[in-house]
């Protein structure tokens, strides 16, 4: 089976790649394009470490075929900071010590950004349920939730 030629946009840049049908978007990001910021924790959509947005919708890259990226717009963790300016969420995660090992962090940040893009003033409960698909085994979630709420407050204020 010949590979598919896919033309897509990743973090605002035009990107072309070849992939087989079996390869997921996560496989393509990590193994073909070397965008290894999206992590594979489960390959079944249960951990959220590979969270990216696809045409603005939060998805698990492990549950999208690479070939489905054709003509779509993908945002990954690598596109979150603008130049040397961190996104407020990135900055707040650092300030709140909202990461320990850091493997889940890219997924949490992408997911949290998708939340704040839609809901600039979420409650703690809304944050917790929105992020329920992102597993963190280190922090107990406390500092992550605080960081998201604080980033939201900051972004509303600015």
């Amino acid at each position, binding site marked *: 089976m010949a590979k598919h030629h896919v033309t897509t946009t990743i973090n605002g840049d035009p990107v072309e790649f070849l992939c087989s049908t079996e390869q997921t978007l996560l496989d393509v990001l990590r193994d073909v394009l070397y965008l290894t910021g999206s992590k594979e924790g489960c390959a079944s959509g249960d951990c959220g470490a590979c969270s990216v947005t696809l045409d603005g919708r939060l998805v698990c890259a492990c549950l999208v075929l690479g070939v489905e990226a054709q003509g779509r717009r993908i945002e990954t963790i690598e596109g979150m900071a603008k130049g040397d300016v961190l996104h407020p969420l990135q900055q707040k995660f650092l300030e709140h010590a909202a990461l320990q090992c850091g493997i889940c962090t890219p997924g949490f940040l992408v997911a949290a950004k998708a939340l704040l893009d839609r809901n600039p003033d979420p409650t703690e409960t809304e944050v917790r349920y929105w*992020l329920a698909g992102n597993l963190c085994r280190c922090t107990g979630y406390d500092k992550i939730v605080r960081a998201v709420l604080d980033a939201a407050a900051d972004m509303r204020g600015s």
Partner: protein
Amino acid sequence: MDYRSPGTVKEAVDLLAASGGGAHILAGGTDLLVKLRTGFVAPKLVVDLKAIPQLRGISSDARGFRIGAATSCAEIGEHAALGAAWPGVVEALRLIGSTQIQGRATLGGNLCNASPAADSVPALIAAGAACEVAGPAGEREVPVERIVTGPGRTSLANGEFVLAFRLPKPPARSGDAYLRLIPRTEMDIAVVGVGVALALDQAGVCTQARVALGAVAPTQLLVADAAAALIGTRVDAKALAALAVAASAACKPIDDKRGTIAYRVKVAGVLARRAATIALERAQAKRG
């Protein structure tokens, strides 16, 4: 394994029919990709239905709502009119997986994956939803409860697929609700799911009811006895108790890694009572 993304219903029907069962439909992919990854399925062809306009989006007409079978749950959840008309259906489909899963999962996939535990299905059945089915012989409309015939099995013929879901206009003074039991608050498969839809007359007496159970039998169950326990009552404590008994009695569950027979039977009754209470409140709220 090849991948095709047809742009029309006919093209999709032809591809599926020509594959002789060797093709697998891709909608949201949240079940299929896991099955591909684990080797549970190994189709020769994957047919992505998302490029077909008839499978996308939500519209309403005199009959009610039409939801394209490949519309993502996230999109459906954002449709205010649908949420106001059928809050139980919407809360059910919003329970399918995480935010990430919501961005991809579809009603068509949730139904045709044919899991006894699919969250949207009991709510759709309770709401009296039907499927528009396309296939080599043309299109037909089928009640949702007739699609799934067993775990992983549907009544769809080779080349057929679900185009859209039809939800009727809700009757006056009606309400629906869906509740499920999972061990955590999110990310689990339902151990028991219960959808209830009911309508009241002006005096507050229940005139219509449909009660559907999930994860307690090889397919979702539409439980006539449970509905009968409500119809003609004011959905008071006695009726709710009878509903719980009827719901529990209808269960034919198995012991598995997600729950025991005894647990599912008991909790089906509890959730039926609680879901009916919410549906009642919603129906009463519409009274004014």
